[in-house]
């Protein structure tokens, strides 16, 4: 569904009034207008990072939007990478560092078989491959590979949260894509305790 103008705020109001709807609806894209009334660029920015120029004549405004988005994305990826598990050398001693990411779900996972098959089928959107094992009744351990980068990611999955561990060699992008795709395809109210959006 695409809405714009005054309908957009009405639609937003309707969604905000319905809690059930909030978990099922996520933004696919936002339209951003930058520049002056006469010289501007109107861009669509999709949830997966794709830009498309809709109208306007200002290449500079378009480019500055792309640059700013890239800068913010890079900063976010950098902040994620600070949590990666690994070691750091200081004075000839290897000290351990890092912690898990906690993705908290508002929409509970009810059908684990379906959820895990979809998550780990190596296809778009998640592009994860993984071995799952049952730790307890509704708690799974998953050793996954990000097919996009080839790096590993460990997951613990319960109905109400997903814990994710990135090793030192993984890119923060792996976690961010998992978060965004879960937000887009499973629970738009998902939150990650370790991610700080500015």
């Amino acid at each position: 569904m695409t809405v714009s103008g005054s309908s957009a705020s009405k639609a937003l109001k309707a969604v905000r009034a319905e809690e059930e709807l909030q978990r099922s609806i996520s933004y696919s894209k936002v339209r951003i207008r930058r520049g002056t009334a006469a010289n501007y660029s109107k861009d669509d920015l999709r949830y997966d990072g794709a830009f498309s120029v809709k109208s306007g004549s200002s290449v500079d405004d378009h480019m500055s939007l792309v640059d700013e988005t890239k800068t913010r994305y890079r900063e976010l990826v950098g902040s994620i990478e600070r949590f990666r598990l690994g070691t750091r050398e200081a004075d000839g001693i290897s000290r351990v560092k890092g912690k898990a990411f906690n993705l908290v779900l508002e929409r509970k996972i009810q059908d684990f078989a379906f959820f895990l098959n979809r998550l780990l089928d190596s296809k778009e959107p998640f592009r994860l491959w993984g071995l799952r094992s049952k730790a307890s009744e509704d708690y799974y351990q998953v050793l996954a590979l990000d097919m996009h980068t080839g790096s590993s990611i460990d997951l613990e999955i319960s109905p109400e949260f997903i814990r994710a561990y990135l090793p030192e060699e993984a890119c923060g992008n792996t976690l961010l894509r998992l978060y965004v795709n879960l937000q887009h395809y499973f629970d738009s109210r998902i939150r990650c305790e370790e991610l700080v959006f500015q």
Partner: protein
Amino acid sequence: MNCVIGLCARDVCWPSTLADLGYQVQLIEQTIRTGSGDDVKPDMIAVSDVLVHSLVFECKGGISLDAGQISRYKGLRVGDLTRWVTLRTANGPLTFDLCFAVREETELIFLGQTDPYPVLSFGENAIKKRRDFSRTELNGRFIEAIDLSGMRPPLNYYPFSDQDKDAVIIPRVLRMIMQIALKSSKGGPSALVDSTFDSEDILSGTHVYWKALSTEHRTELGNRIRGIVRRILASHEDLRSQLEELESKRGYKIRGPLTNLRTTMEAIVDECEKQEIMNRYV
């Protein structure tokens, strides 16, 4: 070990009892020479800048202590630790406690062997402290048993040690094989060649704290991993041929082998878990 590390993290659905007092894990399996000339190798050491205190943990998954372990620890002094740990505060001096973390079902065995040191006992439903720490702040956090109902223990901070059973190590080895095979199709080494697993770079991918492990532990783990790889590839022809197929693929046409490999590998893990259960009754 994962449960103790989890206490020092701030994770959803696991208590952050030690993190709340400022503890952070700094060292894993670091050999420390004590003032009396003995070597001790605690499983982990956590340090709190807030309390200016260090917790030296021995995590016992089995049912007995190593011979002479307690007497070696009796020689451990705070001066032996200060070289290894980092304090981000000038408020001193540092103090420490040795603490044994055990499973609830082995608590009675260890209580008899670890006197006078505090013990944290991890059960399905609660974490209980037996005997006191030297710091009242710590004792205060464990006055009541820590309720674990609704909690989910972390499983992936510390992947495995050379003491773990095959069922714990095999899934990570299989994933490593898969990772190598995927990269092989882009020019990396083959997962089907023995010498690939001689590389420290490859082996380190199985364990996030590889560099923090002692040389002996890394050697042991390397031997263990190589043995598992050889055994699995020799006894599972289907896995071998699927890996060959994957390694020969170029570009994006790799979906078929990926699904088959997942099924085959999960069957191997399943078979190994069942074997472990059978072994318990033999």
